[in-house]
């Protein structure tokens, strides 16, 4: 009996060790490109193109980071600011519109609800690519070609359906009793949204914000079609343009890649704490 217990304990330890080895492999595979990105960004230029690649830099340098933030070498800061402005506006407006829309879809009975719900669903499955030709024409004829406004509006539409679905699933979990009690206390529907619904679904609102920000921040297609001059470029098309010129330096590109990826990764890291389960993230488009 004692022997059996001892051996099963040993078994468990072995299994545990094997599990952590497996975990290390999964994480290494998943994160390897990020590792290479970072290591290359702190290597010297000659080491980055050495015939025998090194994992860790022989000499560590932060020159590439200094370079990308030097406006005389790179318009990186301009692109970064453009991306930040567009993404923040998209995220704020998406959150506002989707709170209203999701409240109606979740709590109100009205004519055409099912139709609207399925239309949102169809739009959710849409790709911006399918509408790129008419959107390009509409934007041009409105005189909005090569403006950040055009990009911002197109991106808001892109994020809205998923944002509404995500928030609706949060609002659905709020019991009707709470609202009825609030109504008896004399609150109207709009006050209920602001004082009852929003505070109760703050984690949903944060995840919608992060989602919309990410869609805008990562967008390449709309930016590449709607923007034509460098001073309006967002990071994805700006970096792509820089990479197409022959004078790119790997270290700089990797430094730029890291700094470009950081805002969304940090935002996700923070919002993880607020997201329950993961059902909501599962609804994220991309």
């Amino acid at each position, binding site marked *: 009996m004692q022997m059996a217990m001892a051996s099963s304990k040993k078994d468990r330890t072995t299994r545990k060790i094997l599990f952590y080895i497996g975990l290390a492999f999964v994480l290494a595979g998943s994160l390897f490109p990020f590792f*290479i990105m970072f290591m290359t960004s702190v290597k010297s230029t000659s080491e980055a193109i050495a015939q025998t690649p090194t994992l860790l830099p022989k000499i560590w340098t932060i020159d590439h980071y200094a370079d990308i933030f030097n406006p005389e070498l790179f318009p990186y800061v301009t692109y970064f600011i453009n991306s930040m402005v567009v993404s923040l506006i998209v995220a704020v407006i998406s959150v506002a519109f989707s709170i209203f829309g999701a409240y109606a879809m979740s709590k109100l009975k009205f004519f055409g609800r099912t139709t609207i719900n399925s239309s949102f669903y169809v739009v959710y499955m849409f790709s911006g*690519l399918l509408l790129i030709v008419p959107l390009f024409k509409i934007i041009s004829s409105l005189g909005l070609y090569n403006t950040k406004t055009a990009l911002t509006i197109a991106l808001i539409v892109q994020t809205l359906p998923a944002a509404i679905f995500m928030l609706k699933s949060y609002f659905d979990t709020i019991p009707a009793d709470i609202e009825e009690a609030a109504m008896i206390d004399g609150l109207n529907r709009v006050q209920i949204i602001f004082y009852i619904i929003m505070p109760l679904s703050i984690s949903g609102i944060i995840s919608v914000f992060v989602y919309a920000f990410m869609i805008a921040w990562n967008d390449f*297609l709309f930016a590449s079609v709607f923007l034509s001059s460098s001073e309006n470029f967002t990071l994805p098309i700006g970096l*792509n343009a820089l990479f197409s010129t022959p004078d790119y330096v790997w270290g700089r590109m*990797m430094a730029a890649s890291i700094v470009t990826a950081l805002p969304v990764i940090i935002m996700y890291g923070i919002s993880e704490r607020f997201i329950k*389960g993961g059902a909501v993230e599962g609804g994220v488009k991309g």
Partner: protein
Amino acid sequence: MKKKARKKTDNKLAAVLLFPSIALILLLVAYPMVSNFQISFFEQSINPNIDPTFIGFENYTAILTDAEFLKSLGITFLYTFLTVVGSTIVGLAVAIFFNRPFMFRKISRALIIASYVAPTISLVFAWKYMFNNNYGIINYLTVDVLHLFDQAPLWFDRPTSSFILVVLFAIWRYFPYAFISFLAILQTIDNTLYEAAEIDGASAWQKFKVVTLPAIMPVLIIVATLRAIWQFYTFEDVFLLTNQVNTLGIYLYQTAFAFNDLGKAASISVILFLILFAVILITRKRVNANGNG
């Protein structure tokens, strides 16, 4: 009487609350759809000063007889199939692996999502460097260390190796989406079901087939369907990595903005719409029934 009055206020309030979303969707999704259909019957260049000419179904006949289009369609189906199957299986395997309590669980889960949330451009730069023909670490490992290949595959310059590259990229990039969805549903499965199966002497595979698979089926259908649709319209992942793999997204983009033929590009969109609608009609009921919209 009272009920009726209540209903009326709901209608009005719903209209006000939904107005911004619906107005934007009408202006920038519904109207463009109609406009796109119209453009597809015209010969039209990007230059707004050149007037469009009505040419009937010529754009459609040109596309459907274009060998390049048919080839692109085939490549896109294969790409979609491989990336959906690959990312779903990897995502499910990692989710099953994660479905137990362990140290660093939260941080590991967050780290796995990194490839899914990071901008394509950053990831593509890293892959371009890793797979570089001359000094990339992948060729160094596969040729000089492991001797898997005699010669370094030119990952970006040959149709076949580039195709393998974009499929690997998509599986790596999108498996976290399946992973998150599966992990959430796996956590809801009652452990006593596994214990009961164990008492009946079920093997690991039988437990998976009898307990896990039926429980995750609804999520599996949603994940695979949405992933298939998004992969089918893939554009930037492939466009930024290589010019050797002509998926439909790239074919459409280049027809419009490289060959300057908006009419033909619009008719490609219409054909893609039709394919999308067929998929929606087939899947909508099932996906809706599972509460995802």
